[in-house]
C-alpha cells in the first residue's frame, strides 16, 4: 500500500522556530543567528559589540558542543547570557532555543544574539526563530570559502569579514571573497573588521542599530 507523505523533513523544527519567533515578536526583540566556522571570531565580535553598542540592551545565547568559556566571556561584558551545550550536535535547533528562553529577561532586551556552534555547514539549515542570520568569516580561512560553503553565504543578511589585521601575513584574495559572496547573494552586506584593532567595527554597529530599531 502506497501512502503519500509530502512533508518537509525539518517541518517539526520549522514549527518550533515559528513559535520562538512569535515569542520574540511578542517581547519586541530583534534576534540574530550568528554563524561561522570554528574560531572565526563570533564571541570576539559579540564582546566588541556589547562594548560599543551602548543604548541597545543585548542578551546572548551561546551554543557550543561543550564547555562554558564563551558564556563566561559574555558575562564579563555584563550582558545576560545562557549557555547551551549541544552534547555533540553540530548545530543549534529551534527546540534547544525554546528550552532556555525562560532563563533570559526577554522583555528587557532590544536584541538577542544566538551564537551558533562553530560549523560552516549546517547551522544555516536549521531555523531557530531568528529575524536574520549574520555570518563571520575570518580571512585566515581562505578565499575559497564562499564557493565551498555556499549555503551560509546565501542565507545570511550580513557577512563580517574578520581578522583583517592579519592580511599582511596571508596570501588571501579579499576581493575574491567579496566577489564570490556577492554573486551568491547580491543583497549581502559586507563589513571588513578586526576585533583586534577595532577597525571596521563602527560601521557594523551603525548597521546593527539601524536593523534593530527599524522594526
Amino acid at each position, binding site marked *: *500500500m*502506497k*501512502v*503519500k*507523505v*509530502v*512533508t*518537509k*523533513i*525539518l*517541518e*517539526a*523544527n520549522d514549527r518550533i522556530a515559528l513559535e520562538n519567533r512569535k515569542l520574540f515578536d511578542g517581547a519586541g526583540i530583534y534576534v540574530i543567528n550568528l554563524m561561522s566556522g570554528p574560531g572565526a571570531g563570533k564571541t570576539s565580535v559579540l564582546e566588541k559589540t556589547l562594548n560599543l553598542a551602548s543604548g541597545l540592551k543585548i542578551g546572548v545565547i551561546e551554543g557550543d558542543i561543550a564547555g562554558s568559556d564563551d558564556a563566561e566571556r559574555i558575562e564579563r561584558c555584563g550582558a545576560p547570557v545562557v549557555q547551551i551545550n549541544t552534547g555533540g*550536535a*553540530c*548545530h543549534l*535547533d529551534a527546540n534547544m532555543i525554546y528550552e532556555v528562553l525562560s532563563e533570559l529577561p526577554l522583555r528587557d532586551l532590544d536584541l538577542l544574539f544566538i551564537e551558533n556552534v562553530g*560549523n560552516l*555547514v*549546517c547551522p*544555516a*539549515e536549521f531555523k531557530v526563530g531568528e529575524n536574520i542570520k549574520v555570518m563571520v568569516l575570518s580571512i585566515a580561512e581562505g578565499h575559497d570559502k564562499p*564557493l565551498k560553503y*555556499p*549555503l551560509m553565504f*546565501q542565507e545570511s543578511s550580513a557577512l563580517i569579514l574578520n581578522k583583517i589585521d592579519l592580511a599582511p601575513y596571508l596570501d588571501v584574495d579579499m576581493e575574491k571573497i567579496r566577489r*564570490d559572496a556577492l*554573486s*551568491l547573494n*547580491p543583497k549581502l552586506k559586507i563589513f571588513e573588521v578586526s576585533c583586534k584593532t577595532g577597525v571596521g567595527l563602527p560601521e557594523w554597529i551603525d548597521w546593527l542599530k539601524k536593523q534593530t530599531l527599524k522594526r
Partner: protein
Amino acid sequence: MHELSIAQNIIEIISEQCVRSGYSRIESVNLRIGRASGIMSDALLFAFDAIKTESVAADALLCIEEVPVSGRCSECNSDFAVEEEYILSCPHCGGNSFRMTAGREMDIIDMEVS
C-alpha cells in the same frame, strides 16, 4: 554533517504517519534531497540504517532522489541546471540575475506500508 538528526526526523515523521494510517510496517520510503541541501546521501543512508531498528521502519529501504541545483534566468528567460551546489551566473547568457528554482529540497514524498 548532521545526517543522524535528519534520519531521526524522518523516522519520527514516517512512523507516526504509518501508525496513523493503520499500518504496522514500512517497506520503503522515497525522499527528494536537493544537491544544495547540505545532506550527503551516503551518510543519510548509513544513519537511517543505524537507527531504524526498534521502529516500524526497522526493515524500511530508503530511496533518495537527488535533485540538481536549477535556476531561471530573468535576463534570457532560460531554465537551467548546474553541476555545482550553487549558481554564479546563467550558463546561457552569463547574466547575473537569476533565481534558484530547485536544489534545496529535503522532502519525504511517499512510502510503501503494509
